């Protein structure tokens, strides 16, 4: 069952690693978007870039990563991260 409120963040050691995985996913038509890594899941990682995968696309993303040995640091699910009317700016 796909959860439209759930998104998966792929974290990286550096943005070069992130861009390489993005290219790989795009090559295999797996939808992904570049997003700032939420600080709560970033830990000690210095890299602020993550790849955002909708819940509906995570299975195909994982398959692509495993089959092509895509490199990443970790994959973290988070729910309710984005709300266009939240009005919490920086």
């Amino acid at each position, binding site marked *: 069952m796909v959860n439209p409120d759930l998104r998966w963040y792929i974290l990286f050691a550096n943005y070069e690693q992130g861009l390489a995985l993005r290219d790989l996913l795009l090559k295999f038509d797996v939808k992904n978007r570049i997003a700032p890594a939420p*600080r709560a899941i970033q830990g000690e990682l210095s890299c602020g870039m993550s790849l*955002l995968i909708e819940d509906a696309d995570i299975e195909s993303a994982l398959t692509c990563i495993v089959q092509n040995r895509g490199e990443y640091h970790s994959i973290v699910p988070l729910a309710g991260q984005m709300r266009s009317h939240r*009005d919490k700016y920086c």
Partner: protein
Amino acid sequence: MANYVEMWKDLGMDLENHDLLCQVLPTAVGDVFLTQENRPNAMDFWDLVISEVHGIRPAELIEAQKQGRKVFGTFCVYVPDEVVVAANGIVTGLCGGSQFWVPDGETVLPKATCPLVKASVGARLGKTCPFFRIADMYVGETTCDGKKKAYEILGEDVPMYIMDLPQMKRPKDIVKWKEEIADFAKKVEEFTGNEITVEKLNEAIHIINERRKAMARVYECRKSECLPISGRDALLMTQISFFDDPVRCAQMCNRLADELEQRIKDGVSVVPAGTKRILVTGTPLAVPNWKLHNIIETSGGAVVCEEMCTGTRYFTNLVDETKTTLDEQFMALSERYMKTNCACFTPNTGRIEDILELVKEYKVDGVIDCSLKFCCLYDTEKRSVSMALKEAGVPVLSLETDYADTDAEQLRTRIGAFIEMLNG
């Protein structure tokens, strides 16, 4: 592996406080940008930049400094990037657009100062912005009283150079600005140790003109009734252009424009047909100030143009590339920059003419004239803007806001009502 923490430490930043800023940025980016559907693929470049906004570009600037290049931090679209680029220097924008920096600014500035000025000073004093730590020299200008006084504070521990911008546009004022540009060139030569020659300045003029043309291409696409990009995304592109390498910026804007032009051909719009088209005018929206655009575009409107420094004023008008002496080139620069219509000039009828022209070109349904709190100049000009638009039969909503979230609900109510009125 990029170790930005070490870099920030070396820059003398307050890591603990900076981490608080790092916590709020991803939430805002997610809410404002990633909730949008059907964004242009080429926005991936700006998504990366904003994800690593205190990482990638600062690291590039530090690397350039190691090669002997100097970084000049600027606060205004009147400062000619061309002069710095001609001396192999690098320009980076420094205007602060975050409420996060305001309290630190208020420790030395009156609370009744515009939030852009308070945030800029706060970013420096609070040691939470790498760009303020990296810049070898700050370049100010006399566009407003708040900035002029702020520059005195910022100049206490960073080399500061001030350009005296005329406040009228008579022929003698254009000559005066040319002389200011020539003086600035001498200072830049002295500071960088690099001579500015006719050839180098011509090359720099070309580089900056190409950036202007590329940004103008993106804006040209926003004139289409089939709107291929949101105002939020276009604003992000413009905001980042102040920080980026100008050649790469032009490449990325052209790449985006290619996609937008194709979208128009294919009939791909980011909003439903009939969505009311809004022109936003007023004071600049420095990164990460996205409040106004987000509220407009989540209240049923689409921002199709910004008549502001983070908008058309930044790229409109090119510098003549045919001049053959430095004196002629400085005059060509002055003529171009003095065409920019800021409320610091009197009279400033050119801005009204610009707004009326943009309303036609961008097929605008309504104008939102928004100034930052305590900006007396733009606040006062709301009267003439409003009168001219009403005479032209164009609905206008005048607003005042700052960087805080506290007025968001009130803004939603007023902007929502305005768009509802446009929808008839």
